[in-house]
Structure formats: structure tokens, C-alpha cells
């Protein structure tokens, strides 16, 4: 072992018990979580989540408290039937009804995809053709023909070597000691 990797002054028994090695399943889970983190809109939690409107605060009517101009000024719809409809929609309930247009639009993407799959399975031609893949799934590209590159987590250059404990890549002994000192198994991005 190179001097940088050995903890001086710590007994070998302690070093062994401290050593937790992630198995393949754990590494895959970490990888999946990292990929999900890449798709996240925000890292932090909602900063206004703990806001509570005081009961003493005056309550204004629906129209004044809506964020944009009220529907009437923008709707421009003169017909009485439409006017009734918009009033009914406003009364039907607050944000939930508007956001999902009365619950018809799924709130999250996974549900949308499932619904699409179910719908296609019910089409008359589905059993005959045998494939129920949606156009969305068919458009998904496959894996690259080129081999993946791995980069050192510490400096960003090519990382041919892998940390035994957590599977992170590093490029040199100095990057490895930096990784061990501070980041091994502690980084949750």
C-alpha cells in the first residue's frame, strides 16, 4: 500500500471493522438515485412549506387572490353558456380542479404513461399486432455503441481506477486519498 492510503496510528483491527464495502445491488441503487437526481427540478425542499397563513389575516374573495388577472378579463367569452361554465369551474374547488382540469389530466408522468399503455392495450388492433409499445417508448433511443467513459470524481479527468468501498472512480493516488478522507460514502448529491 502506498503511504497515503494507510491510516497511521489506527490499529488494523479497527481498520477492518470500519471497512464497509458496498455490494453490487447497493451500487446499482446509488447509481439509480444519482440518475434520478439528475432529472430533479430542485435539490432543496420548498422554502415556503412552513408558511402558515394566520387565522387573523383578512380573507379576500377568490378573484382578488388569484395570481394572474381574473378569468373574466382574459376570457373574452361573451356567450352566457361559457360564462356559466367558467363560474362553475371556479366554484368547483380551488387549485386541484383547475390544475388537473377536473381530475382528467394525470398529476404525474408515470401515471400518464401507464394510462397510455392501458389505452393502447384496449385498442382493437392490439391483440393482433402483438406489440403494445406506445410511440413514446418506441422513440426512446437505445444504448450507445461507444464504450462508456469514466471520470475521476475528484478532478474530472479520466478515472480508470475504482474505489473498493463505494465504486467511485479516481485517477491517481492523491485523488484517492482526497476521496477517502472526505467523500467516501458521505456524498449524497
Amino acid at each position, binding site marked *: 500500500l502506498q503511504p497515503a492510503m494507510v491510516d497511521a496510528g489506527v490499529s488494523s483491527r479497527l481498520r477492518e471493522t470500519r471497512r464497509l464495502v458496498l455490494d453490487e445491488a447497493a451500487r446499482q441503487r446509488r447509481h439509480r438515485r444519482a*440518475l434520478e437526481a439528475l432529472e430533479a427540478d430542485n435539490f432543496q425542499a420548498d422554502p415556503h412549506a412552513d408558511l402558515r397563513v394566520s387565522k387573523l389575516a383578512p380573507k379576500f374573495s377568490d378573484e382578488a387572490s388569484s395570481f394572474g388577472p381574473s378569468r373574466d378579463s382574459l376570457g373574452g367569452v361573451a356567450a352566457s353558456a361559457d360564462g356559466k361554465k367558467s363560474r362553475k369551474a371556479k366554484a368547483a374547488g380551488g387549485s386541484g380542479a383547475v390544475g388537473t382540469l377536473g381530475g382528467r389530466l394525470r398529476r404525474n408522468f408515470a401515471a400518464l404513461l401507464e394510462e397510455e399503455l392501458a389505452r393502447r392495450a384496449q385498442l382493437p388492433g392490439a391483440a393482433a399486432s402483438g406489440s403494445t409499445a406506445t410511440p413514446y417508448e418506441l422513440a426512446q433511443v437505445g444504448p450507445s455503441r461507444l464504450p462508456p467513459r469514466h471520470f475521476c470524481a475528484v478532478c474530472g479527468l479520466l478515472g480508470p481506477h475504482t474505489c473498493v468501498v463505494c465504486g467511485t472512480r479516481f485517477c491517481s493516488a492523491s485523488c484517492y486519498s482526497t476521496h477517502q478522507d472526505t467523500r467516501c460514502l458521505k456524498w449524497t448529491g
Partner: protein
Amino acid sequence: MSGKDTLIIDLGAGYVKIGSVSESEPRQVINSVTKAKHVKTRVFVGNELDECKDLSGLYYQLPFQKGYLLNWELQKQVLDHCLKPYADKRPLSEWQVIVTEPCINFSPVAEALDEVLFEEYGFKAVARLPAAFLAAQRDQRQRGVSPADHACLVLDCGYSFSHAAAYRRGRLVPGSVRRVNVGGKVLTNYLKEAISYRQLMVMDETHVMNQCKEDACFVSGNFDADLAAMSRAAQRSPLDSEAQERCQKLCCEYVLPDYAQHRRGFVRQLGSQKQQQQVVACCFCSFLFVWERGLPIHQEQTLRLGIERVATPELLFRPSDAGIPEMGVAEALCDTLSGLPPHEQPLYTDAVVLAGGSCRFAGFANRLETELRASLPDDFPLGVRCHGDPAAQAWLGGRDLALSPDGALECYAVSRKDYRITGPPCATKDLLSLPDACRGKSAELP
């Protein structure tokens, strides 16, 4: 229906590009209702963010999820904000609108869009068209090719994903769409992680890092050579002049905004005396310096950027760099091409149209051309075309369509009267794929 009172709304997951046909370029409005950390009394709808004094720690609420418009509560707020100047001029019932949708859409999403546009806003007519289609229209009209001869490949790199699609005679070739799930959002998150791991904790600062990505990142012509040059510099080996040049181009400082003197960060090139030292310092992780001491080195906070400047946009070409098991945009274009009839393929490669904000990186077109040229037979002509700002291409295509003298917009727009008869979704989709044999009469485009 004349094209005079037409609004073109390019409804994107990142930005809404909106403008009337009389304007020459769109307004870019951020498509989010944003919460600021220190301002608890209000939220910022769209570009109201300009009124916010402190842009650190912003929390975005996006109506789009994975590239599809699912949350109308938020989207209505942003659209109300965007449409206000136009509604003030003339009531919305007198406007007709061209609005964009993703290349492959789901019927509930399309129905919801139609319903809101016709029933909530009451537009006179709506043309719901894919952004890639509008970019293809832009290409056809800008180059002056007749519609019957036009063929192109469109690469639309947006916020949530990137699509490659083939268009022939103004219609999508069925089965030619390929989707790579890498877009501006993934690139910004990748940069945030790299900087947070190596230098300064910026995971909360999406807005600032997005600006950093736009300002400092570019696409390298040869990423492997850049890596090799930086590795040699890190090992303090002597560098030849080409490697020296690469390192100097890459290493820079990015001064973070402090909202007192400047609201947006900027790239600061390093002075020539300190360049050699900085090159080496960039390669070694400087987070030990900043993080453990907890003090900024100078008065202002700066980031040291090196290989991250090119490694971030590199994800568009090699998503496997971040562990995403997909092919990059150049390979996706080749994949689209391989599904087309072999004798027609050269027609498509002659026009590879770039659209979408993530194509704006400096050096993108050159790199795409290099990669495609290497994958195509050498007797195929190759032309990567971008008619102006990639982010505005779909909007400009919509504008060209609205202004075109042959009244092409009529084929796509559905009037409110027809909507009331048939209900959602409107049948604009049928006109956009090549007709198949079993369809009776389908409208032939001029």
C-alpha cells in the same frame, strides 16, 4: 383567416417563447412559478423574477414534468402573465394562436391544451404543432426550397430531452422520431454536482449555475485531446504548444453574482502571468482550499472551471459519461437516418436543422458536423443548418408559417367553431404524418 393577428407561443418546459406575428423575435419567459428563499410574501410568475433582488436559492415550480405539460394550475399563471400585453391590446377572442407541443404527445395532454386554449382563453383558432415541425418549416422557407422537394432532419435539444426527427414535404416521417433524455436540465444538474463535489456547495443554486452553464460552457471539438492536455498539465509534464493552448482555453474563473454589484456571473480569463499556475491548480481539486477553510479566497466568490466547461455539454453527445445508458444526439440522428429509405438518405443529411436552447453552446454545430461526417458515407452531402438563434427557431418557424403568402396556416389551424362541433383533440395531427394507404381523402398540402 389572415395571419395578421396571430400569436405564436412556443410552450417549452424551460422557457415560453411568445410573440405576435408583428414582432421580429420572441420574448423568452421562464416557464416556472418561482419561490425565493427570503421573500415569503409572494411568488414570482415567469419573468417577474427580474423584480427579485436576491436570486440565490430559488425554488422552481414547473408546470412541465419530463417534458409534458401536466400542471395547468401553474401553467395558467405563467400564460396569464405572458398574454396580458396582448389581451390588453385586443381581446383574446380575436387572436388566433400557434402553440407548440412535443414531437410525440399524449392525447390527454393535447386535449387539455386544446380545452384550455379554446374554453378558458377563447382564442379564435388554434394550430397545435410540434416545435420540430415549425423548425422544419423555418428551414424550408429560409432556404427557399419548394415544399414538394423539402427534406430535413431536425435536432431539437430542449430543456427536458432532445429529439431527432425526419421531415419530408412538410410532414413527419412516421417512426423516425428518436428521443435522448438529456436536455438543459440534466446539463445544469450535472454541472451543479461537479462543482458541489469539487469546490463549492451549489446544489441549491439552480438559477446561478444555469447562467454559469450558459456563460462558461462550450462544446469541445476534440474532448479526448482536451482531457489528455489537462492530464499532462496535472502531472506537471511539459506541454507542447497545442496542449498549452487547450489548457489556456479551458481554465478560467467564473465570478459568482453578489446581487449588490452584479446580478449575473461572468467568466474572467486568467492573466497570462498566472496562467500556468492556474492550469495546474484547476486540475487539483481546489475544494480543499475553499471548503475546509470556509472562507472565500477573494472578496468575491469565484469558481475555478477547467474540464467542466467542456465535460458538461459533452453529455449531449455522450450521455454515458453521466451513466445514462443512451446514445448521444449525433448517434440518434444516424439512427433516425438508418430508418429512412437508402436512396433518399442523402436528401436528409443535406439539411440537419438545429433547434432548441441546448444547441446554443458555442462549437455545437462544428462538433455535430464532425461526428456526423465521421458516421456517414463520404458521398453523402452534409449540411448542419441554423438560421439564427436555435432557441427561437420554432417560434420563427411559426411566424414564417403565419406570414406565408400561400396561406399554409389554414391547413393546420382549427377554428373555435370546428372545435365546438368535434370536441378535443383537434385533428391537426393527421395532417402532419405522411398519409397511409387506408385513409380516404386526406388534405394534400400545396
